[in-house]
């Protein structure tokens, strides 16, 4: 990962409105640095998912500039976007599993899209399913899985290709606290391997479990910066949950 500017994502005065509605995101400016771990918090409807959609290239902003991996992705020709998307791992808030594919094939999907050889797919996918505790459900269709199980398939799919950046929207919303922590460990492990992690959540309990994490907070479509995450170098790592709870 060699970033000329040393950043992986840069938002400059970004605004987003859906159709003719009012702006759901306003004046969003921030920089994400490679290898960092970010939490994105905010009340329901504050715009977390909307911001992540911009991050995983599912949505164009109404105004402002977005650079990813050192490239302006707003003016980038459509044909070059898939290459950027393949560098991302995404856990969608609504999972978005392919309904007629087994858990195994859903997890294998990013590898297959990237053209990884079939012989190099079976083992990592099996291991990943093992890791999220679904080894025995590898052949199950999403519809026959519980909400939490589907969420774990979605997470396995997001991390299987070792993305440069992981974007996860409420990735622990459907699992018990114990499993939530286990999944968080997976994100941390990935983070230690160099992946930038962005996790949207309103589960404050999660935040204190990743001491090095930085917090971005959305409030009615505007970004605030309780831990100085958006400055560089970061003011200091978020380490005490009291501070977040005081917000």
């Amino acid at each position: 990962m060699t970033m000329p500017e040393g950043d992986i994502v840069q938002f400059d005065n970004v605004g987003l409105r859906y159709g003719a509605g009012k702006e759901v995101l306003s004046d969003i400016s921030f920089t994400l640095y490679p290898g960092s771990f970010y939490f994105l918090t905010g009340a329901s409807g504050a715009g977390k998912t909307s911001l992540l959609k911009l991050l995983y290239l599912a949505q164009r902003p109404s105004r402002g500039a977005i650079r990813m991996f050192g490239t302006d992705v707003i003016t980038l020709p459509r044909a070059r976007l898939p290459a950027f998307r393949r560098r991302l791992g995404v856990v969608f808030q609504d999972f978005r599993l392919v309904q007629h594919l087994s858990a195994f094939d859903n997890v294998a999907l990013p590898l297959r899209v990237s053209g990884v050889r079939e012989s190099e797919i079976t083992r990592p996918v099996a291991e990943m399913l093992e890791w999220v505790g679904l080894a025995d459900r590898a052949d199950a269709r999403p519809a026959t899985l519980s909400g939490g199980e589907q969420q774990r398939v979605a997470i396995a799919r997001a991390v299987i290709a070792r993305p440069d950046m992981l974007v996860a929207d409420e990735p622990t919303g459907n699992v018990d606290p114990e499993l939530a922590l286990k999944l968080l460990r997976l994100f941390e492990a990935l983070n230690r391997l160099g992946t930038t992690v962005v996790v949207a959540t309103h589960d404050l309990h999660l935040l204190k479990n990743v001491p090095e994490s930085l917090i971005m907070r959305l409030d009615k479509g505007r970004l605030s910066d309780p831990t100085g995450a958006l400055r560089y170098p970061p003011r200091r790592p978020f380490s005490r949950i009291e501070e977040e709870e005081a917000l």
Partner: protein
Amino acid sequence: MSWLRMERRAQLVPQARMAGPVPWVIAIMVALTTIAAAGGLALGNLAQAARAELSGGLTVQIVEADPAERERQAELAVSLLANVAGVEKAQRVADSELRALVEPWLGEDMGAAGDMVPVPALIDVRLSGPVTQAKLRNIRSLLKAQAPAAQVDAQSSWLAPVFSAISSLKWLAAGLVILLGATSAAAVWLAARSALGTNRATIEIVHLLGGSDGQIARIFQRSVGIDALLGGVAGALLGAGAVLLLGQQFAALGSGMVAGGGLGWADWLAIAGIPFAGVLIAMFTARLTVLAALRKML
């Protein structure tokens, strides 16, 4: 390559072979197109064969009740015609052939009836070039004096309405083939769109995971292509069966003229191309439909 393998291992688009509308629509369209095309080609061959045979031909009839006089004038006419410039051949149609021709109308036993019912003497004349009005007039005036019972007709002139009917039918068949092709394309387009609708979520997911437009279009193209191939082959067999059956029935008529309307190997080759054209149309429309839908996503 790995994408193809991916499709084999894990059907991204659930494939219900021969279950959707695509194969059946294609089968019917290909069958109809095959029949229309075969009809058009056969009519074309028929017209060409008949025209080639008749275009340089004249028929001279000696309509004379008295057999001796008829014989005399016929002989005279043949020898006169033989000396006209541009006449390649002037030949009496043998009595036996003539009898065979009129037999269906006059009954088999021509012994006595042959004398009682006067059958005109026929002379088949073949010119080196096509029959023009001028040549016709020329020959008529030549025969008038010596063989007053002679009636001269261009063979193509009495067939002209038949030719124009055949030619209209040929164009009608060509029009049908074009219309059926357009309808097939439209039906396949609709089917591809509905397939796209039911698989929209999958397409969106693969798109968001970094699947390129080409990759996604290829999956649909293949899936629709396989369906179309199954339908196309079924339709072609059906159509070819119908054409062969019709051909046999026409052959049973035993008429020389209809026999000229058979299908050559080149025609069969063209007909064999129809299902493949159908498959190509299907894959092409599927591709365009998917690409158009994808272009609406970022």
